[in-house]
């Protein structure tokens, strides 16, 4: 891996981390655990469309690990990892199907699956079936935020990619 690539990947990681930090200061709207904007996904989406899966995976793992070290407890690592990896796998598959078009669809599905993955972990950890009542809330939130981040990612990468020097 040459230094240009390392620098670029580090830059992407930093952007994702900064966006995640900024978003964590926003107050939650509903008392549903796990409902958030998911803006860090914008970086993941831009990378899924324009870079290799391996590079995207690297940035995703680095972002999850660093964000947990800086901002979270150990337990949130499990949640983030589960949601993030599930979301990554689904977005990778959907993006391949759509061949890079309709990024907002990829984003919607990824965001929804991310929320569902976190709900699954919450259910497994608390062993209370009552938490599953959050499911429709999280799906709706996942669809709406996925649409928003998908559109952001689409326009970001449209104007950003010609400027980024390939490595």
């Amino acid at each position, binding site marked *: 891996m040459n230094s240009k690539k390392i620098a670029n990947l580090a830059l992407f990681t930093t952007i994702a981390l900064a966006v995640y930090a900024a978003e964590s200061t926003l107050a*939650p709207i509903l*008392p*549903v*655990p*796990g409902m958030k904007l998911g803006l860090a996904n914008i970086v993941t989406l831009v990378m899924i469309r324009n870079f290799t899966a391996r590079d995207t995976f690297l940035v995703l793992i680095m972002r999850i690990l660093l964000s947990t070290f800086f901002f*979270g*407890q150990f*337990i*949130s690592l499990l*949640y983030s990892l589960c949601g993030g990896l599930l979301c990554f796998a689904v977005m990778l598959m*959907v993006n391949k*199907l*759509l*061949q890079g*078009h*309709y990024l907002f*669809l990829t984003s*919607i*599905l990824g965001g*929804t699956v991310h929320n569902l993955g976190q709900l699954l972990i*919450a259910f497994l*950890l*608390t*062993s*209370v079936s*009552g*938490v599953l*009542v*959050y*499911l*429709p*809330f999280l*799906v*709706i939130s996942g*669809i709406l935020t996925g649409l928003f981040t998908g559109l952001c990612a689409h326009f970001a990468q449209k104007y950003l990619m010609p400027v980024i020097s390939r490595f």
Partner: protein
Amino acid sequence: MYKVNKIAVVLGIGILLLFIICLIAVRQIVEPSDIIPYQTADIYHNGILVESISLGLVSETWCLTLVSENGNVNEIEIRPGEIGMLYADCPDQLCVKQGFISNSHLPITCLPNRVVITLRNTDGVQPDAVTY
């Protein structure tokens, strides 16, 4: 290109259906047609049912403190007819901000400390606790 468009349309319709179904579900949850006052609150800690309280039979306010293995503290206050998280040392404080519930389908959840308070219908007259 044509195949991609077809896949996109299928996905789009699927997402729309999912959205509509969940909207209906949310409406059902938020405005339950069977609002019965004074339900039974179940308090779960680490997946174990710690207390079952019939809110209608509560005459005076009392507090229940839950401490987990790594020292995390949750204080639950039980008032006549309602229950709520008074204090928690979790970072997001969602559970505390939710306030007090009396007949809602949404539980009070403190995920980092693994505390869940759910409400359920008290069928008929039931004793609060049974010992053998």
